[in-house]
């Protein structure tokens, strides 16, 4: 079924560029707007392009004046230098990488499971307290990490989790944003699907794992990307102070702060740090947009 629909859509959409124009649009208006959009897009992309191109510049070009936007002799020297520097650090590069990957993976996985379970009952069942709980979640989406940082430290301290991975992983499970998006998306799931499974004798747990979860895969991707973004960029310097448990981003930013001799490596760090979230977003864009379509807040 799905495949057929897609084919039809594509065919329809080659022709109409000119033909199916909306009747109330002026051509001059369209052209002006698109030129404006193009201009804005270039302005928006410029800093990122500049960051990438300066990571590819050899050292002498980095300090050239007037500076050029694009490198004349692009090299990967900055990246290989970066690995050399990382290799010489007291804690090895692979250890930092492991820390980040482990924190990101565990945090994202736990968040996905726990938030989906909560989202499932909030979306599909009517029980006392459910609505109120959801309202609290929407308010909690406004908290910035800094506001809750101090009491969080005290709690983690009492639990004895300070300076362990858990200090980053467990709080990430409860991120309100993921629950919110998941719940909104699950509301679009037909209730009859769940009821049919129940009549066939499945209990809630089975309904959740075999009916609901496979049907909300686009929302998984969205949860994953938001969670990965948060955890990948987590410098973890407040709750973790042992060097061997710090994250990659922290280590990279230490190098970046290394002064003028590290300019080239600093530029390479910028690229390494930003490339991961951007690549994940590019790969999962259509699924994320599908989820965001149900993100609206009703009052």
């Amino acid at each position, binding site marked *: 079924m799905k495949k057929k629909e897609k084919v039809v859509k594509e065919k329809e959409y080659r022709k109409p560029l000119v033909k199916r124009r909306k009747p109330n649009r002026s051509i001059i208006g369209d052209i002006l707007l698109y030129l404006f959009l193009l201009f*804005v897009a270039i302005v928006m992309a410029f800093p990122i392009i500049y960051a990438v191109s300066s990571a590819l510049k050899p050292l002498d070009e980095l300090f050239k004046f007037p500076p050029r936007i694009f490198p004349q002799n692009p090299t990967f020297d900055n990246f290989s230098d970066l690995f050399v520097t990382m290799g010489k650090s007291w804690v090895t590069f692979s250890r930092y990488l492991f820390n980040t990957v482990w924190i990101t993976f565990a945090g994202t996985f736990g968040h996905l499971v726990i938030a989906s379970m909560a989202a499932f009952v909030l979306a599909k069942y009517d029980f006392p307290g459910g609505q109120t709980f959801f309202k609290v979640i929407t308010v909690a989406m406004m908290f910035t990490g800094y506001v809750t940082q101090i009491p969080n430290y005290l709690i983690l301290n009492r639990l004895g989790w300070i300076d362990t991975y858990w200090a980053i992983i467990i709080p990430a499970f409860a991120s309100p944003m993921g629950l919110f998006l998941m719940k909104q998306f699950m509301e679009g799931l037909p209730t009859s699907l769940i009821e049919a499974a129940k009549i066939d004798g499945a209990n809630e747990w089975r309904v959740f794992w075999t009916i609901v979860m496979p049907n909300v895969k686009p929302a998984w991707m969205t949860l994953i990307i938001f969670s990965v973004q948060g955890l990948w960029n987590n410098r973890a310097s407040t709750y973790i102070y042992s060097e061997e448990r710090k994250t990659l981003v922290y280590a990279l930013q230490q190098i970046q702060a290394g002064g003028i001799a590290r300019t080239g490596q600093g530029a390479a760090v910028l690229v390494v740090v930003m490339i991961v979230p951007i690549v994940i977003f590019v790969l999962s864009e259509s699924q994320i947009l599908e989820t965001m379509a149900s993100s609206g*807040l009703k009052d």
Partner: protein
Amino acid sequence: MREDGMREFFSKYFKLRKREAAIMVKKAKVSKMCYAFLAPYAILFAMFFVYPVVASIYYSFTYYNILQPPRFLGLQNYVSLILEDDVFLTSVKNTLMIAVITGPLGYIMSFLFAWLINELPRWVRSIAVIVFYAPSIAGNCYVIFSVFFRGDAYGYVNAALQNLGIIDTPILWFMNPQYMLPVCMLVILWMSLGTGFLSFVAGLQGVDKSQFEAGYMDGVKNRWQELWYITLPNMKPMLMFGAVMSITQAFGVADVTIALCGNPSTDYAASTIVTHLIDYGSQRFEMGYACAIATILFLMMILCNKLIQNLLRRVGT
């Protein structure tokens, strides 16, 4: 007579309440499974989001430095925040400036661009989404702006302005209080097409096409009328969501100003409520005082959210 009436009213009221409560309890007993599903999330959420806010309000009335047990002070922290702490007032002013300018502007930009790219062919649209959204997820890529706005004549902006003959000495963008905030706002605006923007893009795709056709019949003349009478009313839930996102962003500004201007910044010209909070919480360890700052920030955000939701209800009418 009147008292009797009152009593009767109250007894009826309480009876009703009791009955409602009984129904609630019964319902809750039936839906035990729901609570079981909700429990893991709810416990963690209470631990790391609800309790911290409550604790933060409690500590805001005390003197607390982690080493000694909290000592109750009453409203002392708030009084000294408002009456004695000049830096806090500067921070509030800066935060409000940033929020009032970048909040609505970023919000409008998010919607405007989402709306403009909506009618592009699909592949162009998906590239445009990536280009516009990338800055907000690009880690700390914003430090690249410190290259553009370098304080010496080698910075792009200074060089360009000098070549044009507008200035003759390079401007210290991140040290001159006159320019710090505007430059930071520019960077924040650059990053403001975030989650709200995605929500708008997706929401616009979901607007029912037949409504537009009905609009042509009823004489919607141009795209602006179409926007106001058809698109915006359909987008209300997304607009609400986007508003929450931009408030969070606008009031939580700290990383950008710290990276570009330092903390504390020259003359505190770029300090925001959050940088002030970091200053007291993580550097001076006056937790009670820092919690008072956090509480004020939190109240401001909730108030602002209420205000905007009331405004948005009027859209399209």
